[in-house]
């Protein structure tokens, strides 16, 4: 039987001719069908990469924000302010507070114009626009406007005002800001001169 086994194992017979053409057709179809899949894969790849990038950015953002949030902001800000403010500026601010305090605590007969303005409803939200030395409009915040207006009065004494204005000038001269004709300090002195 071994002989017949070998015969069967090695049996060869030519297949019909159309088989090869059917195979080529099928291979071509698979090629065509595979193309969109490849494209789809590429799109999927880019989409996945983009999504992954967005997720990474979002997560890192959350992580770093959390890190920042955990730091004591107030302390941080205080440190920064302390670093930024020189002794001169701190002195100036203190002096400013003293003046405002003096105005507010002034006796009734010496009540200052600024105080009256502050008492007026909505004053704090208003800005004063004045004409500068070159007739240009200068917008002044309510707080500064209060100081300018109060310079019109006897109280606080002129000496205190001069000291304060000189201090501010010094600070500004020492800073990167260059004083101009429209400088706030000039406006102050102009206002003071007008009063005189």
């Amino acid at each position, binding site marked *: *039987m*071994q*002989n*017949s*086994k070998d*015969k*069967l*194992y*090695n*049996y*060869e*017979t*030519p*297949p*019909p001719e*159309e*088989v*090869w053409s*059917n*195979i*080529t057709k*099928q*291979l071509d179809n*698979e*090629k065509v069908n595979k193309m969109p899949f490849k494209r789809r894969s590429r799109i999927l790849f880019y989409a996945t990469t983009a999504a992954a990038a967005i997720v990474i950015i979002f997560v890192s953002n959350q992580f770093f924000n959390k890190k920042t949030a955990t730091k004591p902001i107030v302390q941080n800000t205080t440190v920064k302010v302390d670093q930024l403010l020189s002794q001169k500026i701190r002195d100036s601010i203190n002096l400013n507070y003293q003046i405002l305090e003096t105005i507010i605590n002034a006796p009734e007969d010496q009540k200052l114009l600024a105080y009256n303005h502050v008492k007026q409803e909505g004053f704090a939200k208003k800005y004063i626009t004045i004409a500068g030395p070159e007739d240009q409009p200068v917008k002044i915040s309510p707080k500064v406007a209060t100081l300018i207006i109060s310079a019109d009065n006897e109280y606080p004494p002129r000496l205190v005002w001069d000291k304060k204005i000189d201090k501010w000038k010094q600070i500004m001269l020492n800073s990167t800001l260059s004083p101009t004709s429209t400088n706030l300090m000039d406006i102050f002195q102009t206002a003071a001169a007008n009063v005189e």
Partner: protein
Amino acid sequence: MTLQSNHIPTETDLIQGCINGDRQMQQLLYDKFSAKMYGVCIRYSGNEDDASDILQEGFIKVYNNLDKFRSEGSFEGWIRRIFVNTSIEHFRKKVKFYNVTEVQENTIEDNELDALDLLEAKDIIKIINKLSPGYKVVFNMHVIEGYSHKEIGDILGIKEGTSKSQLARAKGALKKLLETRLNKAENDTTIL
């Protein structure tokens, strides 16, 4: 890879060319193995139409899976296995094997089928194709391809014993068919 006029591609060239989708190489591979694999398909299917379908399906599998061939065994063996498996898949839908209780079958020795040796391969195939599909598959796998009963059981999803009994019955049926044929041939000779 393109085929040079004087260059006979080696098996490696063929494999690599087919992996790269070179149609010329694919055709060369087909030309080299199609006749032999068609023989396998005919043995399992029993008719040319089914054999052609299996051949086509098998070659598509070969082209699509060539990158998995590891060169550990023979290339022809690897291809043949694909065709045998494709043939089995093709007929698994048609053929139902029943796991039966192992019964001692009348064992038929191979020498009782020696008369097959007298026949041409295509005549043997004609006789084998007269067997029921279940018998034919087991006979082909065990006797011709050399699969063990355990392997046949694993591939076909049947018990090892079922494979053995199917083979015994296949041999019995084959013996009867062979006897009928030989008797007929004798009678034809007598008449002549």
